């Protein structure tokens, strides 16, 4: 395989990885909204300092919870569970 071919394959792999990352982000955001109906979730891939606005799989998810839930330890645990569930869900989708 030539250097150009390797570069093309690497680019495809990066796009695919980024796509999975975006899906993960959306799944996670959905889970948060399902658990906290009044929460606002903004998933962001458009941060200037990211190497590539949508292809870089570094993700930022901004969660605003209602005041009543903001300082509850249960809320943190539930969000952590949401992250875990989202990873499991995507892994499950990929294995079908």
């Amino acid at each position, binding site marked *: 395989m030539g250097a150009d071919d390797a570069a093309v394959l690497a680019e*495809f*792999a990066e*796009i*695919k*990885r*980024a*796509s*999975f*990352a*975006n*899906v*993960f*982000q*959306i799944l*996670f*955001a*959905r889970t948060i*909204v399902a658990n906290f109906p009044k929460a*606002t*979730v*903004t*998933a*962001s*891939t*458009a*941060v*200037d*300092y990211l*190497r590539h*606005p*949508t*292809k*870089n*799989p*570094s*993700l*930022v*998810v*901004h*969660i*605003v*919870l209602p*005041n009543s839930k*903001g*300082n509850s*330890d249960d*809320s*943190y*645990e539930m*969000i*952590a*569970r949401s*992250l*875990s569930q989202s*990873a499991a869900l*995507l*892994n499950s*989708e*990929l294995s*079908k």
Partner: protein
Amino acid sequence: MAYDAMMRAEEAQGEKEKAAQLRQQYNKLKESGELADYQFGKEQRYFGKQMIYPSEQVAKSLGLELTDKTLSLDLNGHGHSFSFPIDGQLASVDGINLEVSSPPVRYKHQRYYLDSDLVDVVIPGVLNPKKLDVLFGTESTNFRIQNVWLEEHLPPQAQPKEPRPSPFTSGQEVGTFVEDTPPTQPQTEAQHSATQKLIDAALKLDPSLFKHEVESYSKHGLIIGSPV
């Protein structure tokens, strides 16, 4: 493509000045959106650093219904909805806000074009993550999320003058932040504390999945790969 071929031909003949003129012309056309490639009848147009596709073409190729509303361009189908604001960077994907870097671009004849990253990366991933393997012709059905790296700080340059300062928690790959103030306010100690609490909760919940790093930005991405 034609420009590329012409520039290469001029360079091969030692006509560096002509090649430079062609490149200048090429770059000017790219900036203005006048340059497009047509492959297998499909249009891809250049607009500055963006590559864009006609929205009708995107809708047809993905089997989605396109609705051109006053304030947004909507694509619906396969149980999913995508809404891209005409003037803004907060798209809606299945009702979830998603900040994107490139809103739809209006070109001649009132036609709208969508950014290639949205079309090639975001939308297909949401519609069917597995289909990506087929598209790229590679065997990656064993791809999995193996680790989620969490980080408590955004890089310093994101702090004061950014339009969306740093109300985020960052994660090497998944940044999460919990707070109860609007996103336009700068990060506070309370927000930082909330982030740290979330990281602690995640590490306690599943140390095999969650990993923690302190400001080691860009060392890791979302770790997706075949299980060892």
